[in-house]
Structures are given as structure tokens and as C-alpha cells.
């Protein structure tokens, strides 16, 4: 009897160990296979030129349009969702702190919105654009991505702001500061490391998403000079190049994938560094 019990535990412990290993291995495997396939075809010309005449037949040119376009689009979307997200997250945790039910309802709605697939945002955005006769553009893409990123950013910020002790709020208010001052001068500073992580997380989401900009941002060989022009993006550039039958173009898709992976990894590492560095300035309770 006892032996059976022990065997069962051993058996499951081995299984557990291996499933943990599988997850770790999956990440290494994914990154390694993308780098292995893409690194050989990456070149300086590719990173610094926009597509030339025969680009889509495998001739000269690069993906600078997609790199810059992606940076424009996701920076714009991050800034816009910051302008909506930070006030909302602060409002929930400073002004509404006594209305727990309302705050929980907002969280619930945000969680629901977080779950909405980005293709739904994309399709909706496109429908709105056709209704008003707006053409695909950087601005339209940015707004669509903003809608999709807001719930992610607010919830991430909310998780951080939630952890601020009530005592800090009370002492700030008792010294005569208004709620808005408490929010921006106390809560914002106290949570700066966590908030910057939330912003970087949102940036990573914005730059990686393809489904929401498939119909709204368009695609172009040029770097946009104003918000009403269409814009190329890395995920779509990878997607389109990979569906080409020409091997050279496919190679470039793999190289573009390397660029995207590196941007994502750098964002992730940066956000970790931020949250470690600013930890020192934090008031501890």
C-alpha cells in the first residue's frame, strides 16, 4: 500500500519535472530556431533600406519601412493608451478607493476587454473606417491598436497601484493635498518602476500584434511622413513575405522575424532592468 503511494508521487514528480522542462525548452527552441534560420540572411543593407523595385522578387532593398513603421505605430499607440490608461488606473485606486464594488466592476470589464481577440478590434476598426470613408493609415492603425492595448495597460498599472498601502493615501490627503495631487505626485512616483514595466509590456503587445492592423494600417514601401499615410509594420511584413513562393523573399521574412524577436527581447530585458533600478527609490513600509 505504502509502496503504491510512493510510486504514485514519484511518477507524478517525474511528470511535473518534465512538463516544467518542456516549457523552458519550448522558449529556447522557438528563439533558437528563429535565430538559426534568420541570422544568416540578415544584413546591414536590409536594415537600412526601404524596398527597391524588385524587392518582392528577391532583389535589393530592405525592411526599414517596416521597422520604422512598427516603431511609429507602437510608440503612438503606447503614448495614446498611456494618456487614457494612467488617469483611469489612478482614478480607480485614488478616487474610487472607497467604492470597492465599482472598482471591481471596472476591473471585470477591463478583463473582458483584454480577452477580446485583436482580430475583432481590427474588423471593427475597419468597419468604422469604411462607414466614415477613412482610408487605411498610420493614425487609423494607431487608434485601433490603442483600443486593444488600453485594457492591458490599465490592468497592469492597476495591479501595481493596488499594492500601495492605504496609509500613504491617508497621510497625503491629511497633509492637505488634493486627490489629483495625491494621484500624480505620490502614487505615480511611488509606483514609477512598476508603471514603466506596464508601459513596456504594452509596447511589446502593440508592436507584436498583427491581426488588428491587418485592415487598418495598410502596407507601403515607404516610411510615412504624416499620420494619414498607410504604414508598413514588421509582423505584417513577415507575414506577407513568408507567403511569397520565392525563396529569397522567404529568407528575408525569417530575417525580419529575427529583428522582431530582438525588439521584443530588448523590451522585456529593459522592463526588468527598470523595475530593479527604481526599486531603490521606493519608500518601504
Amino acid at each position, binding site marked *: 500500500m505504502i509502496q503504491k503511494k510512493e510510486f504514485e508521487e514519484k511518477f507524478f514528480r517525474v511528470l511535473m519535472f518534465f*512538463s516544467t522542462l518542456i516549457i523552458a525548452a519550448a522558449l529556447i527552441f522557438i528563439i533558437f530556431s528563429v535565430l538559426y534560420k534568420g541570422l544568416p540572411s540578415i544584413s546591414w543593407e536590409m536594415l537600412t533600406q526601404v524596398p527597391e523595385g524588385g524587392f518582392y522578387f528577391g532583389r535589393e532593398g530592405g525592411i526599414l519601412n517596416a521597422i520604422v513603421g512598427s516603431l511609429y505605430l507602437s510608440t503612438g499607440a503606447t503614448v495614446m493608451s498611456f494618456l487614457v490608461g494612467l488617469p*483611469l488606473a489612478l482614478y480607480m485606486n485614488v478616487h474610487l478607493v472607497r467604492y470597492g464594488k465599482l472598482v471591481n466592476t471596472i476591473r471585470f470589464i477591463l478583463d473582458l476587454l483584454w480577452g477580446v481577440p485583436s482580430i475583432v478590434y481590427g*474588423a471593427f476598426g475597419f468597419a468604422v473606417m469604411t462607414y466614415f470613408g477613412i482610408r487605411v493609415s498610420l493614425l487609423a492603425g494607431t487608434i485601433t491598436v490603442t483600443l486593444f492595448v488600453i485594457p492591458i495597460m490599465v490592468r497592469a498599472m492597476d495591479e501595481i497601484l493596488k499594492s500601495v498601502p492605504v496609509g500613504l493615501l491617508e497621510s497625503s490627503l491629511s497633509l492637505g493635498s488634493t486627490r489629483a495631487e495625491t494621484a500624480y505626485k505620490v502614487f505615480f512616483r511611488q509606483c514609477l518602476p512598476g508603471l514603466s514595466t506596464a508601459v513596456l509590456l504594452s509596447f511589446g503587445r502593440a508592436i507584436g500584434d498583427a491581426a488588428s492592423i491587418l485592415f487598418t494600417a495598410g502596407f507601403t514601401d515607404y516610411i510615412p511622413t504624416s499620420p494619414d499615410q498607410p504604414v508598413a509594420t514588421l509582423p505584417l511584413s513577415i507575414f506577407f513575405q513568408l507567403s511569397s513562393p520565392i525563396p529569397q523573399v522567404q529568407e528575408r521574412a525569417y530575417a525580419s522575424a529575427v529583428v522582431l524577436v530582438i525588439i521584443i527581447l530588448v523590451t*522585456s530585458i529593459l522592463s526588468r532592468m527598470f523595475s530593479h533600478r527604481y526599486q531603490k527609490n521606493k519608500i518601504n513600509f
Partner: protein
Amino acid sequence: MNRAVMRVSRIRVGRLLQDKLHVFWMQICLVLVFILPFILVAGMLYKSLLLIEAQPLTELLFSKTWKPMAGRFGFYTFIISSVWVTILALLIAGPICLLTAIHLTQYAKRWVLRVMHPIIDILAGIPSVIYGVWGILVVVPFIGNYLGPFFGKSVSGYSILAGAIVLAIMIIPFILNILIEIFKNIPPELSEASMSLGAGKWQTIKLVQVKKALPGIVSAFGLGMSRAFGETIAVLMVVGNVAQIPKGLFQPGYPLPALIANNYGEMLSIPMYDSALMLAALILFVVVLIFNFASRLIIVKSEKQLA
């Protein structure tokens, strides 16, 4: 004397005005988020009404004929493909997540958790198009060259199974994060009580912890499924996109999000087609919303029970 009072009051007014302005903007943001889901539903419903009025909803959902040019839209094929891919992905990801979560919260040393945290985070942050690239590079050839022939079938590799494997890895970090939270939140007194009665560690985990965490586990799986159901680009790249009802794991499929992504934008000249794709988006939205709603409700309920 008057000057001093005026200065003080001016500062006061400025600060109060500032406060009012901030609160005003905050409330606008709040209202924006509150009405966003309703705008989404209203917009999609408005667009898809054209088709719903032309064909009964049951026929749209359960008919297999997809002939846009003839004006016949049956979503059954696509819905079934989506269901297949989603359930398979959960079958792969579910057990792995559960076992890993138990391992990380009960058995593993602290450094393992410290290593696994960034791994899970990065896995969650990898864009879906990269998963798609990986699927084309690794999963599709593996199924086409090894797994298919192993079962005596000659297949291209672009299949339901490939979509499910890629999806499974995409939803693993998502489910795992929730599961770890849930296992961490189980009060330690429960395990202590169980162990003090003579139960072993594994017995305690199996009979006390997992039992206590069951609502959480169910809802984590529900959230994972809804994530998988709406995932677009990665699945689109590996699933084959053939509009037929898949009869086996190695057959290609055509899930709903892929249908929208492949056809939307070009088919505006046919208003009915446009309306049909909007309906597809609405179906996605509603299904995902129901799954999310149910799962979150279970989590909230069980949290209340614990507290």
C-alpha cells in the same frame, strides 16, 4: 493684508481647478472604457444585421454551404475547425500547465521559480506572428515528414494538429500564470491540517489543494480556451485554410479568425459578404465574451469563498 489673502486664495483656486480638470479627464477615460464593449457589439450587430435578416440564424450557424458568390453563408465548417483547434490546444496545454504549476508552487526550489518567471513572461510576450514562423519552420515539417508518415498518412503538415500545437504553446504562459496565482493563494492551514492528520505531501496536493483549486483551474482553462479561440495570425499560418470539415488531426482546417483575416478588406464590393465576415467577428466576440464571463465569475466566486 489683502494681497497675502489674494495670493493664497489664487493658489487655492488654481489647485482646485487643477484637481477638477484631472478628475474630469479621468472620468472621461472611465466612461470611454465602460462604453467600449457596447460600441463594439453595436457596431458589429449593425453591420451583420443585413445578413441576419436575409437568412435565419440557425441556418447561418449550422449550414455547411459556404458560397459567397451565390449569397449562401453557412459558418458550420469554420466553427467546427475553430472548436477542433481550440479543444486540441487545451488538451495539450492543460495537463502541462497543471503539472508545472504544482511543481513550481509545491516542490521546486526557489531558484527554479526565479528562472521560470522570466521564461513565462517572455513566452507570453512573443508575438503571434513569430509563433507562426516557428510553426512553419518546425511544427509543419515535423508533422509532414515524420508524424504523418509514422501513422501511415501522406500529409502536407499544414493541419489542425499543427495549429493546435502552436496554439498550445501560445496559451501555456497565459494559463500557467493564473494557475500559479491560484495555488499560491490557497491558505497553508489547509495543507497543514491535512498533513497533521497523516496524509503525505502528494496526497495533500491531490486531495486537498487541487480540490480546493478546482474552480480556479476550470476557469484558467476557460480563459485559455477563449484566448485560443480568437488567436488569428499564428493559426492562419499553419492550419492550411481549406474550407472543409476536418475528419482527422492531419487534415487542414479553416478557423473563424482565419476566415476573417483572409477575406476581409477585399470583399467590400459584395455587401452580403462584408456583412457575413462581420457576423463571423461577432460570433467570435460573443463566444469569447461568454467564456471569459463564466471563467471570471467562477474565479471571483471562489475568491470570495476563500476569503
